[in-house]
């Protein structure tokens, strides 16, 4: 009986494993993508991490948009706009006949409602509007007027971000985050969302712009890079975007069945020093340590060359970027540490913190490698500690950690977003550095008010040069965007703003 039963199970196994590999992925009508990212919320008022925002960028639109593949901002739902002389009042003329996917109209009142709602709900990204917007008013059905608290030249970039997208007032409650299926106003709409498993996008027939190229996009959500890799190799998905392990990407680049697309990403990583902490209040010590960090080794050995060493906070490729920080030089690091009085017998004892899962599974490797690099000087004893993300956030805002790893993904594509939050006195506690310098603040405010890019570039050069002397951060590297896809998938665009446009995909 046991034998018979065993045979039964074995044949069942065979049946199951060989039958029906035939689900219909070959049809042209859809593309199946995969990711390890997670969705928190698809309400523009709350969404504030890459994947949720990226989905919104495919199912919604705003007053303005970036031309795909560039950083140039052009009108989207707006027909045109005017900025007052003092830089405080923005007046938009909206296109006519715009509707949501459910047929409800999109007009200036809708925008007024949406922006006021964001500010009122006070969710995570709300500060982007709340900090600068004084008032939003629909002057008539097609005219929207936004008044700022002070002249703020990057504001137009914020209007291109998901936070400024319009929502249907009939569906999205004014006082609550909306959790249902989103009402779309972009190329796609969400047909099905099974959290932690998959999200299905279908063409929005009521979209005013160019129709999405492929009727259906299915994005499978995987827990880990491994699962994503497996699904890709096994033919379950045709495209993988965010995030394979460096080793996996390296391997798949050699695989002729797949095509790999690499582009720059505005994502940066850095070590933060808490300038208020006793141990790291001395800029000379921070400088000495920055000489000990070998970014090339991190990029090569952990990331297999898939990130680029970065020597300032503004990423390469963005205007204002200037390579200012000291490069790896262990002799200088040793000399400077010795000058500070540290010896082999009496080494500097420090702790480096990291958060294990927030930046992917390579994070502990990064921390360990930096620890080893510090210790290579022979004058440092470096501990490594970690905390889960929530505790980590708590620790840095409370100034518990003296030195820790952090990353930055821009909210709007402007050097201001890489300088102000890091270096301005009121903003830097949010970054955990508590750095404060009055002349620095003056420069930063000035750079916000000026609208000429040339002028601003000069100002940011100054800011970065000043930053080198104080070294409150050690920038580490700049990320890449990597997409792996079957060769027949077309329309993959490596966007400098890193908006992945599913609606351009086809096969």
């Amino acid at each position: 009986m046991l034998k018979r039963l065993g045979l039964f199970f074995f044949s069942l196994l065979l049946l199951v494993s060989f039958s029906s590999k035939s689900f219909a992925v070959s049809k042209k009508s859809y593309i199946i993508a995969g990711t390890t990212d997670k969705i928190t919320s698809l309400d523009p008022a709350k969404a504030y991490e890459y994947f949720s925002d990226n989905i919104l960028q495919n199912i919604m639109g705003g007053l303005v948009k970036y031309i795909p593949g560039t950083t140039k901002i052009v009108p989207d739902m707006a027909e045109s706009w005017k900025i007052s002389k003092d830089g405080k009042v923005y007046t938009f003329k909206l296109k006519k006949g715009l509707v949501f996917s459910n047929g409800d109209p999109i007009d200036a009142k809708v925008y007024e409602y949406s922006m006021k709602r964001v500010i009122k709900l006070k969710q995570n990204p709300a500060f982007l509007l709340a900090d600068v917007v004084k008032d939003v008013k629909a002057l008539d059905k097609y005219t929207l007027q936004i008044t700022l608290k002070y002249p703020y030249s990057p504001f137009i970039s914020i209007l291109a971000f998901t936070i400024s997208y319009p929502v249907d007032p009939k569906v999205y409650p004014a006082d609550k985050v909306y959790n249902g299926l989103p009402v779309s106003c972009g190329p796609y709409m969400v047909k099905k969302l099974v959290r932690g498993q998959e999200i299905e996008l279908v063409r929005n027939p009521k979209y005013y712009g160019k129709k999405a190229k492929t009727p259906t996009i299915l994005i499978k959500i995987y827990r880990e890079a491994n699962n994503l890799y497996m699904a890709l190799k096994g033919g379950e998905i045709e495209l993988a975007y965010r995030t394979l392990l460096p080793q996996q990407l390296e391997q798949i680049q050699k695989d002729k069945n797949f095509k790999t697309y690499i582009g720059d990403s505005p994502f940066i990583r850095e070590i933060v020093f808490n300038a208020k902490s006793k141990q790291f209040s001395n800029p000379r010590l921070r400088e000495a340590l920055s000489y000990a960090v070998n970014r090339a080794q991190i990029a090569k050995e952990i990331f297999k060359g898939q990130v680029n060493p970065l020597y300032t906070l503004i990423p390469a490729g963005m205007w204002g970027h200037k390579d200012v920080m000291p490069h790896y030089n262990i002799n200088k690091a040793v000399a400077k540490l010795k000058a500070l009085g540290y010896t082999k017998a009496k080494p500097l004892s420090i702790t480096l913190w990291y958060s294990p899962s927030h930046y992917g599974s390579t994070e502990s490797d990064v921390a360990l490698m930096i620890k080893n690099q510090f210790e290579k000087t022979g004058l440092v004893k470096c501990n490594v500690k970690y905390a889960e993300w929530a505790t980590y956030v708590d620790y840095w805002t409370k100034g518990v950690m003296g030195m820790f790893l952090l990353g930055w993904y821009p909210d709007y594509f402007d050097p201001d977003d890489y300088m102000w939050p890091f270096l301005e006195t009121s903003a830097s506690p949010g970054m955990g550095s508590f750095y404060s310098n009055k002349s620095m603040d003056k420069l930063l405010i000035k750079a916000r008010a000026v609208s000429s890019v040339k002028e601003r570039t000069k100002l940011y050069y100054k800011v970065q040069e000043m930053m080198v002397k104080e070294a409150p951060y050690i920038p580490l590297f700049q990320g890449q965007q990597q997409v792996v896809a079957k060769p027949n998938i077309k329309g993959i665009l490596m966007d400098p703003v890193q908006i992945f446009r599913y609606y351009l995909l086809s096969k």
Partner: protein
Amino acid sequence: MKLKAYILTRILLSIPMILIILTIVFFVLRVLPGNPILAMLGPKAPPEVVHAMEHQMGLDKPIIIQYLVYLSHIAVGNFGTSTYTSLPVLQELLQKFPATFELTLYSMVVAVLIGIFLGTYAAYNFGKTTDVFARVYSIFVYSFPVFWFGIMLQLVFGVWLHWLPVSGRSAPFMIPEHIYTGIYTIDALLNGNFEVFIDAVKHLILPAVTLGIVISSIFVRMVRSNVLLSLSSQYVTAARARGTTEKKVLFKHALKNAMPPILTIMGLQFALLLAGAILTETTFSWPGIGNYLITRISYRDFPAIQGAIVFFAFFVAVISILVDIINAWIDPRIRY
């Protein structure tokens, strides 16, 4: 005592258990560092917003008040709202639960099948090769870390042989059209979609077998010793004397009479199964409550973490009540 009264007693007795687990977790979570508001709003949030949020969530009240409020909410099935997704926790849990249930259900089936067959045969062939195999098996398998065993199966059947998918619950477009129970194998059949059913089974095999085998070590042992006991009893001798076939003796008489204690142990092992399910879900990216719990821990999503644990406690309580009731129903001596 009547069965109804027994059931009532049993249900009432499980309330303190849930309450105690809930209390422990509540206080452990609150006493320790980490600010859920900051985690939710990000470090850029202005202090007044943080305070407003704290006020809105009642986190500025004394911890005892928070506790009582939480209890009163739980009592009416309000598990709070996730700070990570803003969705009602209960809704999220109910969505994840079928996956966990499906996994544990099939793992249990695997474990019970292995346990009953191997255990019974081992007892029947007491001292012979089968028996020695069964004993070595149960000791060895007991020492397997679930996650390690899962990885090994992934390696062999997924990576090397490419027979089975190594993760997830379904292939693309293979989620059953209409969800009735949330258990894909059942829903697929209800939908009449055999393709989806096969896909669901394929995804289930590795995780269910992993967990099932690891748990089966205990079943093999229990079934073996209980069947041994009942094989040596008088009714078995009597049955043999009547000329009943050996197969019938074994499965009808010996096994049947060994069943109540085995059932009890099954109930007890359920806790172990659930703990194993968390690790299995992680290993196989199975989108159940275990995975949910682990993910939310890093976001310090208090309501979600508490919710998941209370849910587990409920689940354990319900299962143990069921087992006790079934046992009481089978064997009236158990009621007292």
